[in-house]
């Protein structure tokens, strides 16, 4: 990396990190499935849908309460949907 990022890490962090990451294959090679584990995906799916309904309602009410999308969100949407810079400037963004 050519330019310096002004964040710091604990001493010896990257050496310890590499050792820890290198243990991943051993940790994920043979993991016995606990009793009832086969139901976990179904329970997770059911919980996900329940949470999605609750969070969706809360999120939408939160968004509405804050007065809709921010300018950043609008610009991101326009950029992602292929709007050119000239058009964005025309819209005064």
């Amino acid at each position, binding site marked *: 990396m050519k330019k310096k990022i*002004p964040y*710091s890490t604990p001493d010896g962090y990257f050496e310890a990190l590499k050792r820890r990451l290198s243990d991943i*294959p051993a940790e994920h*090679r043979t993991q016995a499935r606990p009793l009832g584990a086969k139901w976990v995906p179904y329970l997770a799916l059911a919980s996900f849908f329940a949470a999605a309904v609750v969070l969706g309602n809360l999120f939408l009410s939160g968004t509405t309460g804050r007065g809709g999308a921010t300018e*950043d969100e609008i610009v991101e949407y326009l950029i992602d949907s292929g709007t050119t810079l000239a058009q964005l400037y025309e819209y005064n963004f």
Partner: protein
Amino acid sequence: MRLYSDMDSAERQFQDLVNRYSERLYWHLRTMVGSHDDADDLLQDVFIKAWKALPGFRGDADIFTWLWRIATNEALGFLRRAKVRSILTFRSLDGEALSVPDTDAPLDAEQAAARLQKAIASLPPKQRAVFHMRYYEEMAYEQISRITGTSVGALKASYHFAYEKIKQYVLEEN
């Protein structure tokens, strides 16, 4: 990079990925999420996913692009979840996003760099990712496009907006 068929060889390949890319991926994640602990957790998740997906990895794809795509998606997902949590707890994310240390920067150049980092932290997540890859990693737009799945034109617009916002932020700070 050559692909290996047996488990020992897969572990060697994984070790090679860790040695070559873990530090750069850490800085990418750190720039995006700000906190060391969060970047550390996300990096662990990225490499667990990489290990699990390694057997299905297509040899003709660029493994660097593949890893960066996993990391970028993990960080964007993390920031989306954090935003939902902040709405649920009626808490602003701005304070966390801008929690860049600047008191331990003894030199003007480092202070300027810290100010730049604060400005980057104020960008929306996608612009932050694009800016980091373009500015710090000096990646070509075509490579960023392969990582993010966004067109080169949209990336240029995104980088331009990020650049303008950072410039404005730094000018206001001064």
